[in-house]
């Protein structure tokens, strides 16, 4: 058994510690939290996935992302990991006798017991015993009669505490992060807003990653100083992501585009004092240990898919809805109905192989009227000589639909160009597209 302890010298709130513990789920599913002080992670069974050295670096980076400087230690059991982190010592033997408190009550759930241990420590120190190495020299048979039963418990835990049961810890139910700003931070422009949003998003996506989830729907809001000129003190934006995102890097460009668009139309007239971000819907993401079972190809494919989703969202915010799309062909023959705009990359396509003649590559949104006089076409005020008219292709809808039937021809012009011309039942001719 190998236990890592993330110890925070400055006491922090329980909810924030739980958030970090949730992000630590990426390392191991077995986690315990000591109230406002420490997080324990069982990493002994994950030795094949990462080394202890890399874990130390990653845990420190992660805790810094959440705004704390953690002291990280790894030991064979929970009490020794906690005591080593608290007293910043290299080995258990060099720990001071005060650390017996951590051996007796490593999860900080027994305040009465802690007081009794204080008396025990004082008694031991009066004998001139300063370190745990010295404490170990006292024969264990004499411990209960001299220092009480607690001393024997401490001794047993000092020798072997791996059997200690782990208390239950469950991660928070909601993914919500808040960032409060001081008035002196003067945050009223888009760049500082995004700067603060970035660290908040990093935390929230770190938590999602720990749970192997991706965000599908995100609400982002800002609260403004209530000046008399402020009409809307709370502004909120809702993001429905086409491709669920698993990292702040993918969501940030989408947020930037939306804020750019919205704040350029309705600027904010006072300073922002609170930023809030919450994930309203999630989808299962890839597992935290990506390289274990999946091949590199499939991992990079997933990464690419997520990056493509992020770009799609960014372009959609920038250009407008349905201005960026994947084309999905349909069973319809009419050119304007033969395809639709899809927001999914792998939308099912109709099989068009040998279904109907080749369509022109370019098409007019509105067909252009053309006058046909024998082998001449008068089109946009210019005359063209046709060299060949193809056979007719008739397109019509069912009787319920009142769209008139069209007769399409491929018309080759002198000079090599080919037009796609149709005539309606009244013998009016229109150019609908051209082969380019």
């Amino acid at each position, binding site marked *: 058994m190998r236990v890592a302890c993330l110890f925070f010298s400055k006491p922090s709130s329980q909810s924030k510690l739980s958030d970090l513990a949730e992000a630590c789920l990426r390392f191991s599913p077995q986690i315990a939290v000591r109230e406002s002080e420490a997080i324990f992670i069982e990493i002994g069974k994950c030795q094949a996935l990462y080394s202890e050295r890399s874990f130390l670096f990653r845990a420190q980076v992660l805790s810094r992302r959440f705004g704390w400087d953690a002291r990280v230690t790894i030991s064979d059991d929970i009490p020794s990991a906690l005591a080593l982190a608290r007293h910043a010592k290299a080995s258990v033997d060099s720990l001071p006798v005060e650390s017996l408190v951590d051996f007796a009550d490593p999860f900080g759930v027994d305040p009465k017991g802690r007081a009794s241990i204080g008396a025990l420590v004082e008694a031991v120190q009066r004998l001139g015993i300063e370190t745990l190495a010295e404490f170990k020299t006292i024969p264990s048979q004499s411990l209960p009669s001299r220092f009480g039963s607690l001393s024997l418990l401490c001794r047993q835990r000092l020798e072997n505490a791996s059997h200690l049961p782990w208390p239950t810890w469950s991660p928070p139910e909601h993914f919500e992060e808040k960032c409060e700003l001081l008035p002196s931070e003067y945050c009223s422009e888009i760049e500082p807003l995004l700067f603060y949003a970035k660290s908040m998003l990093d935390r929230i996506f770190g938590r999602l990653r720990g749970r192997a989830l991706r965000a599908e729907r995100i609400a982002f809001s800002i609260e403004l100083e209530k000046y008399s000129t402020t009409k809307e003190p709370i502004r909120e934006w809702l993001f429905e992501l086409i491709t669920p995102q698993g990292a702040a890097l993918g969501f940030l460009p989408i947020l930037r585009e939306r804020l750019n668009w919205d704040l350029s139309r309705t600027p904010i007239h006072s300073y922002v004092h609170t930023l809030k971000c919450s994930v309203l819907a999630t989808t299962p993401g890839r597992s935290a240990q990506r390289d274990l079972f999946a091949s590199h190809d499939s991992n990079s494919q997933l990464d*690419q898919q997520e*990056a493509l989703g*992020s*770009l*799609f969202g*960014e*372009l959609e915010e*920038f*250009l407008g809805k349905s*201005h*960026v*799309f*994947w*084309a*999905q*062909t349909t069973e319809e023959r009419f050119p304007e109905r*033969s*395809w639709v705009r899809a927001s999914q*990359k*792998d939308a099912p*396509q109709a099989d*068009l*192989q*040998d*279904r*109907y*003649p*080749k*369509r*022109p*590559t*370019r*098409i*007019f*949104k509105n067909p252009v009227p053309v006058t*046909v006089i*024998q*082998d001449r076409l008068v089109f946009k005020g210019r005359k063209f000589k*046709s*060299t*060949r*008219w*193809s*056979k*007719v*292709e*008739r397109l019509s809808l069912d009787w319920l639909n009142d769209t008139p039937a069209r007769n399409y021809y*491929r018309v*080759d012009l*002198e*000079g*090599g*160009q*080919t037009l796609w011309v149709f*005539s309606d*039942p009244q*013998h009016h*001719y229109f150019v609908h597209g051209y*082969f*380019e």
Partner: protein
Amino acid sequence: MERPERPQLAEIREKLAQWNGIPKREFLDCDTVPGGVPRGVICEITGSARTEWMISLLRQNPPLQTFWIEEQLTILPTAIQQRGVDLSRLLMAEAGDRLFQALRKALRSRLFDCVVLPGAIDEVKMLKALQLFARESNATVFFLSKVSIHTWSIPFQLAANWNSIESHPVKSLNTQPALFRVSEGQNLISESLPTYSVEIIKSKFTRSECP
């Protein structure tokens, strides 16, 4: 004594790049361009069959991820699929007057191997920026222009033109009956499109393995 043949400028460039540790330039396979189409540069395609040539290039390189952007969409995706291109590899955008910004975002994402624009960008500053983005992302930017522009930043220019077809007698269409024969449409499916010819106007690149 026989003098050794002088090396071409492109060969010298390639050698210098090798010495400086710059990765070898990649090329897209194309049956009408011996040696292929270079990647990471701006290519200008002109002529009456330019879109047809572009689609045939995409068909010959199925793994390519392509971004097709136009100000007002005139391309017919059905036609692209009919010519054998997988539409799931083609992200399309109708950008209006924000074409360049959208293009820049797409190139910076480094997700695409090919970017296709309906016409050329005339402004030199934008062209330079685009050239840098293309090189960074190793994506080929295709301008489907009506007329070619002369600038140093476009190292590859090509013209694809329809071959003229023999003239057939055209019967009077104004005398056709109101109802048309439907069955004739079936024969059109097998009818192939006219052929086009390709002419390389400018190419600053050579592929060492090409003949």
